[in-house]
């Protein structure tokens, strides 16, 4: 089931680059890039860490797309 995300949009609001976000959540810049492109679905732990940095819930960052859509 595909997973959409708003990581790039929320990162731009905080005015931080991929490297900085990666350092905050113990992930590499490359992983943040893969997540933003939708090429990698993060683990629960990483998703929670990202949501915590943005100060929002996980569901507001990562959206599960309905198969019917």
């Amino acid at each position, binding site marked *: 089931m595909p997973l959409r995300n708003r990581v790039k949009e929320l990162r731009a609001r905080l005015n931080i680059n991929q490297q900085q976000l990666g350092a905050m959540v113990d992930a*590499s810049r*490359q992983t943040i*890039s893969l997540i933003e492109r939708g090429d990698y679905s993060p683990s629960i732990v990483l998703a929670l860490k990202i949501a915590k940095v943005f100060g929002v819930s996980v569901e507001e960052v990562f959206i599960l797309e309905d198969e019917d859509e």
Partner: protein
Amino acid sequence: MNKDKKVLIRFLLIMIVCALVGGVSGYFMASAEQSASALMGTVMQLVGKLCYPLCFASALVLVYGIVTYYKGVKLMEASLNDMDNEDLLNQADSTLNVATTCISQSPMLAMIFYGVTMPGCLQPMDLTPWPVFLAQTVVFILVLIGSIVYQVKAVDAVKKLYPEKQGNVLDFKFADEWLKSCDEAERQMIGEASYYSYKMTAAVCIVLLLISIFVSSTLQLGPFPTLAIGIVMMTSTFSYLYKCYLIEKGRK
């Protein structure tokens, strides 16, 4: 007809065709042993002639890797001054990846082609072109030294791009240290790539084993080629299965 039955029928047909091809090939190899032996001898001489220049070609792979490394370093330095430019960062990353690949593969190529053209391997020692062999030896040593020096430099450049990465290329525990510093996405990538590598190694080893058995029937190769390929195949399979078992049991 359900899918499993179709798969079984296809598998059985392939096995029957392979058995027929193997049987017919074996019969012709045995009945035309002398001409097959002469043909193999000619093929070996051609292989030897190709391998002499290919040993020098491995140096070209290293040179390409070094040139790409310097391009990668320029891109890396530019991207470190502009951390918001994601395209530049990705370009620096992929250029350094290409450089690391070429630099790390060049000594493998040099070793293979140098080993194949060793005096006495493809032709008698008294027919070996000694000046060519000495030149090859010098190129082989230079490729080894160059690849070590530039692997260290290339990994240091990647570590500047990704400061969280750990490990010294000269340390025997480098692969373990590097893996420990990888995050979940990188580990998944390594896992998928390793599984693909395991499948390819198994397929190639089976083909090489069959070729080795056929060739051994006409040329006096001894047991070493068949044993070497078999050991590689079994090591790959058993180490993969054993690691899967350990991970399943919750042990590292």
